[in-house]
């Protein structure tokens, strides 16, 4: 236990670190500035700002804002990115409550009851409960990360290449099981991602693979390029398609009376507790994450409720549970990333991308060699949640005004912003064109009901999987049974197989579809 406290202490030390700023105009006087706190604040603010824009999901927000963190030192950049992530999530729930347009899949269920509450003039309490629930979930998740971090890292150090490979297979299978829609298509997307990650030079032999002698492809496809194309540009094209302005039924009344009543608090407390618990567990599972957590929490709350028929007509539990769950899951999904170095979902995959750009290879080694980075990030999560609670409620008025920005002005701005962002990664015009091509690809994928998120996950895990597979087979002298004979690996493989079989079984498949159907009616 003591270790947890000293670690968290170090983390908070990093977050509250003061940097002496000596500007010339003050004549040698220096002012202490809490740089990391400021970065966390800016991240949360900008994240909410972009996340609030309708039709832009969490992944798109993080991808789009990735370039603004490039110039920062690694710790600051990661703290800011984490802030952006939470901000985006919170922004997403604000739009679902006020406009009934969920900015991201995770807040689809929030819209069901949240928007009804807003229509009844109770947008204030809905937003407040969403913020309070998220904050509570954030606190619990932060403690959970701190407690589980160290032991899981020790476990990870005992992992050999075979175990790593099996674990990644498990993660990908989880991602498939929890993805919406067809299982086959989700697997195809992952494999497509794996295939895309093979472009570039081979890690062992240095041979150029599928690069067609194009110099820009020699180092492989840029991660930021792919993410911004698939999520940024594709989203824009898709939204244009849907005729931007048509279904924006903005709540016109002024948001007044933020404070929830005592009854609201009493009703939502158990929902927040259950949502947090469920979200924390689902977040840790590889492949899990905010989306599935909020769906599951809503479904569970409806099942447990004494008045399930009221769900969908504006009950506070219907906001409290999914919001707490998605925030809890958003944070606990950092656990597999920080301890094992395996991103459990697409947003975490983006985090890996950001880390790699800063020269950090996520995994157990980071926890040991750069503890201040990891713990600083963990502590910043709590600070970020606190900031969201403090800044967002008073700023609701501004967010509402932002929602009135017409799409015809918003989308060209996003196109330009993304283009500059992608260009600034490598100063390469080819990257911008590639991102454009991926944007069209993403549009096509959406049109054919392929989800781009698993593709991103596959793209990040590809090189890791290949490396570990090669090593495992080299150590076992070409014996493929190594994955079944090493106990830990065998267990992981068995779980993956069982999961896959279960999803294909008709009865379970129905259950799985049911959870997602909730969002569509």
């Amino acid at each position: 236990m003591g270790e947890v406290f000293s670690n968290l202490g170090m983390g908070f030390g990093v977050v509250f670190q003061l940097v002496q700023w000596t500007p010339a105009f003050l004549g040698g006087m220096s002012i202490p500035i809490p740089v990391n706190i400021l970065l966390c604040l800016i991240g949360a603010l900008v994240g909410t700002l972009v996340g609030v824009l309708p039709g832009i999901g969490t992944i798109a927000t993080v991808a789009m804002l990735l370039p603004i963190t490039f110039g920062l030192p690694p710790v600051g950049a990661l703290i800011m990115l984490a802030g952006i992530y939470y901000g985006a999530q919170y922004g997403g729930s604000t739009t679902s409550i006020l406009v009934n347009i969920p900015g991201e899949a995770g807040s689809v269920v929030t819209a069901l009851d949240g928007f009804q509450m807003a229509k009844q003039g109770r947008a204030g309490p809905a937003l407040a409960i969403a913020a309070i629930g998220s904050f509570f979930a954030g606190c619990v998740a932060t403690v959970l990360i701190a407690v589980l971090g160290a032991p899981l890292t020790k476990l990870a150090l005992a992992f050999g290449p075979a175990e790593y490979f099996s674990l990644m297979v498990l993660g990908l299978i989880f991602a498939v099981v929890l993805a919406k829609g067809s299982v086959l298509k989700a697997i195809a997307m992952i494999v497509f991602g794996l295939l895309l990650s093979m472009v570039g030079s081979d890690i062992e032999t240095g041979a150029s693979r599928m690069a067609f002698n194009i110099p820009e492809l020699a180092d492989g496809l840029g991660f930021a390029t792919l993410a911004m194309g698939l999520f940024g540009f594709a989203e824009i094209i898709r939204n244009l398609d849907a005729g931007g302005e048509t279904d924006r039924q903005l709540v016109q009344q002024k948001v007044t009376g933020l404070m929830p009543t005592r009854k609201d608090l009493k009703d939502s407390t158990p929902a927040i507790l259950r949502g947090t618990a469920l979200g924390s567990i689902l977040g840790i599972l590889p492949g899990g994450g905010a989306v599935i957590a909020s769906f599951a929490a809503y479904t569970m709350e409806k099942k447990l409720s004494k008045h399930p028929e009221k769900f969908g007509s504006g009950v506070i539990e219907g906001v409290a549970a999914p919001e707490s769950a998605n925030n809890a899951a958003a944070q606990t999904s950092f656990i597999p990333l920080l301890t094992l170095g395996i991103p459990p979902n697409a947003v975490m995959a983006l985090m890996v991308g950001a880390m790699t750009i800063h020269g950090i290879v996520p995994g157990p080694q980071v926890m040991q060699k750069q503890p201040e980075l990891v713990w600083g990030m963990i502590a910043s999560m709590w600070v970020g949640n606190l900031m969201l609670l403090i800044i967002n409620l008073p700023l609701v008025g501004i967010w509402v005004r932002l929602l009135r920005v017409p799409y015809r002005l918003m989308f060209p701005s996003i196109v330009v912003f993304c283009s500059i962002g992608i260009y600034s990664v490598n100063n390469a015009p080819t990257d911008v064109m590639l991102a454009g091509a991926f944007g069209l690809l993403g549009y096509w994928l959406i049109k054919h009901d392929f989800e781009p998120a698993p593709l991103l996950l596959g793209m990040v895990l590809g090189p890791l999987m290949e490396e570990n597979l090669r090593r495992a087979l080299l150590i076992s002298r070409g014996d493929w049974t190594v994955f079944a004979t090493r106990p830990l690996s065998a267990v992981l493989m068995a779980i993956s197989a069982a999961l896959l079989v279960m999803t294909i079984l008709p009865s379970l498949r129905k259950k799985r579809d049911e959870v997602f159907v909730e969002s569509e009616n």
Partner: protein
Amino acid sequence: MSETPSHGPVKYIMPKWIRGPQDFVGGLAMVGIAVFALWASSDLQGMRGFSFGAGTAPRMFAYLLLGLGIAITIVGLVKHGEHITTYAWRGPLFVSLAILSFAASIRPMGLIFSAFTSFLISAMGTPETKWKQTIIVGICLTTFCSLLFPYALGLPLQMWPKFMIR
């Protein structure tokens, strides 16, 4: 609304025996990608004894995708599914053009010119654009970006056209 109807299913393009055109075409496209990848990685070395060659993993994934693509195609044949929705042409066209124009002009013309032109080009992506408003917002955004990226974020971007710097 835009002149392109967004959700009307395209009927009668596909023969009747294809029950789920969306999956059918999607699956075929995956097969196509897999075949292309197999061709692209065909010159790479395969297994040497029990160690992987450069081409082993790409080919493995490509074969996997090939199998999945065939499976999706078959599902599209036998299971009733979604029709293919129409593609809008206006949005994708102008957004792509804007991106291309940015990529082509950023080196020779600098940030200010390329950001503003690509803003205007992408604004053509919707018929709802009101030009006066768009130009004002475009100027504001260009100013914002040319302060944010080079100054606030310290990224080395060239601001003005090359011929003017000289």
